[in-house]
């Protein structure tokens, strides 16, 4: 080893550094070697009579026992008892601010010595959390069977407690505003002389050590997609709540989410879909594309068979049928939401007029048709009032026998429209606010709608599942 490096290390040990910290403060991050760190740690622990019997002035005991083993054991037992099924994990440390400041102070001291020996020496060093993770990784991997991976969707965060952190930060707070975010940047932008004059040449030796406080984990969201049918005319898509009171017992969202929540063990979920239908509208055909974001799921592996099982569980409810259930990634979710305006939706409306049937051929012949639609009065209380142009791509109307003579003539219209068109208003005109509408096209002021079904959302999403 370079003689100068050895000399500085000895100085650090005398000041009260543990061996691991003395080594890492003189190691470039790119040349780090776990074996060197572990050797340093073993040497420390096998030599009970160290130069100074205090918590390390750099890491405050992070690399020293009993803290070191205790933290590893806490992480292992957490991963073993929590239900996360991820094969990998990543670690994050929430270290008290004062450990960063201590590191900075030592780094200043080291670089001052280095420059006096050899001005070309690099000053970058291995930070405490990186060194700790490298050293502890093997033990955690062996005990849990999970691989360490910095890109893992499962992030385990360890929190620490240190009694004197406030006092140690206060001396700097007087001249600069410290914050947990970018603390390293704030420190390196400080004038070194100012820092030393406030903080001292080296960190003070303390009595108390850093202590383990908490361990928790969070898994990245998992996205599940599918298509749903709604066979009921008394079911809303999302919970219907007015003034904090439930109006209907259930909803499509809840019927679909409950079994998924149970299987994935999630904190919460977010439901989204390509548009929505009214409570009294059925969703037929190949169904409406939807996606559910599972937030912090513990179980994330859904085999083909499990997906079918979840579908069957959902489909026990006679009001809803789900199919093509599958995992998707975030970019696929964006496809669902992109170009929403231009998607084509197909509806069937059961309409009627008082008296004789008008000439339905007028409907078949008038498309494509540009209409202008003001925000319907029934949603105007919660939406902005504006007029939107919408395209009716095609219409096909046929007379319908309903088996009851109530003085009305019935007809069915299959309407293919631009997404976002309000169909009920396109039939009756909403006090003239949707124009043209079936009333104006047929020249009959009694045209109205009795029932509406969605026949198709013309989006090929998600990829069909082979059954």
């Amino acid at each position, binding site marked *: 080893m370079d003689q100068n490096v050895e000399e500085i290390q000895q100085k650090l040990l005398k000041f009260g550094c543990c061996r691991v910290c003395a080594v890492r403060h003189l190691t470039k991050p790119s040349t780090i070697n776990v074996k060197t760190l572990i050797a340093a740690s073993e040497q420390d622990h096998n030599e009970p009579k160290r130069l100074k019997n205090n918590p390390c002035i750099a890491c405050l005991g992070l690399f020293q026992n009993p803290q070191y083993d205790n933290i590893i054991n806490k992480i292992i037992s957490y991963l073993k008892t929590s239900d996360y099924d991820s094969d990998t994990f990543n670690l994050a440390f929430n270290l008290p601010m004062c450990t960063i400041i201590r590191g900075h102070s030592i780094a200043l001291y080291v670089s001052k010595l280095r420059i006096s020996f050899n001005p070309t020496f690099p000053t970058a060093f291995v930070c405490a959390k990186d060194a700790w993770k490298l050293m502890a990784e093997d033990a955690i991997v062996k005990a849990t069977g999970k691989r360490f991976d910095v890109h893992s969707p499962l992030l385990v965060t360890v929190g620490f407690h240190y009694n004197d952190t406030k006092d140690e930060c206060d001396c700097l707070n007087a001249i600069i505003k410290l914050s947990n975010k970018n603390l390293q940047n704030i420190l390196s932008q400080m004038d070194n002389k100012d820092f030393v004059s406030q903080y001292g040449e080296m960190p003070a030796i303390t009595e108390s050590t850093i202590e383990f406080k908490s361990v928790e984990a969070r898994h990245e969201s998992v996205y599940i997609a599918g298509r749903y049918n709604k*066979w009921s005319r008394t079911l809303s898509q999302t919970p219907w709540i007015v003034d904090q009171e439930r109006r209907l017992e259930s909803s499509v969202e809840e019927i679909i989410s409950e079994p998924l929540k149970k299987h994935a063990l999630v904190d919460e979920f977010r439901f989204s879909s390509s548009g929505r239908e009214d409570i009294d509208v059925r969703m037929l055909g190949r169904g409406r594309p939807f996606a559910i974001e599972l937030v912090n799921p513990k179980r994330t592996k859904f085999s083909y068979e499990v997906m079918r099982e979840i579908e069957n569980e959902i489909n026990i409810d006679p009001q809803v049928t789900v199919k093509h259930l599958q995992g998707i990634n975030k970019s696929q979710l964006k496809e669902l939401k992109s170009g929403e305006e231009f998607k084509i939706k197909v509806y069937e409306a*059961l309409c009627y007029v008082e008296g004789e049937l008008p000439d339905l051929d007028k409907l078949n012949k008038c498309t494509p048709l540009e209409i202008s639609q003001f925000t319907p009065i*029934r949603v105007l209380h919660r939406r902005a009032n504006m007029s939107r142009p919408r395209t009716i791509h095609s219409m096909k109307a046929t007379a319908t026998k*309903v088996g009851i003579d109530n003085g009305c003539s019935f007809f069915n219209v299959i309407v293919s429209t631009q997404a976002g068109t309000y169909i009920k208003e396109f039939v009756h005109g909403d*006090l*003239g606010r949707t124009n043209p509408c079936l009333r104006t096209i047929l020249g009959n002021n009694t045209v109205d709608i009795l029932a509406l079904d969605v026949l198709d959302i013309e989006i090929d999403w998600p990829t*069909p599942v082979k059954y």
Partner: protein
Amino acid sequence: MDVIKNGRDFDVDEDSVPSIEESVEIPEHIPPSVVQRYYESRYATDVNNKPNQDYSVLIHSNNLCILSLAPTHALMGKTIDKIDFQVSGSTHRLTNMMTGKGKRGAQVVQAGSTLCIVHCSDGEEHKILSAVPGKLVEMNSKLAETPNIMLEKPDDLGFIAIILPQKQRFEKIKNGLLTKEQYKIRNCT
């Protein structure tokens, strides 16, 4: 779509889904109209203590109020030449700018505020008054080109305005209006 149909498409057999006409109950009589389905009909009479300043207020289940002429309004039976929406030096009812779902910036009217001024073919001039206070969400712009729909189709194309009463005052405002029955009885006596 074909790809899907090759597989087991539905758990529910498509044939077992009732057709649209089988999926709803067909009423024995003429079904209720749009206005009957969604609105409660109320009336305000002699607004501002002026005789026959009578208005119909259709209250939607979401509390929006559609204002129109009642059958007993002074204008009924006349012919309208022109409607003026400039109700004061600075207020024009058709340039009512608002933004967002909160309708920020919308003109606010009181019960008795002038909504427009009607010029009749007989030379008479009538102020159309608001029967309820609240935000003016919409003034029926069709009245500018075809003013007589106000008389011919009052509860449909010829409505005057849409007003959103303040939520806290809604019940009080509603209770201050005549019900359909009260309005009928009043007209008989």
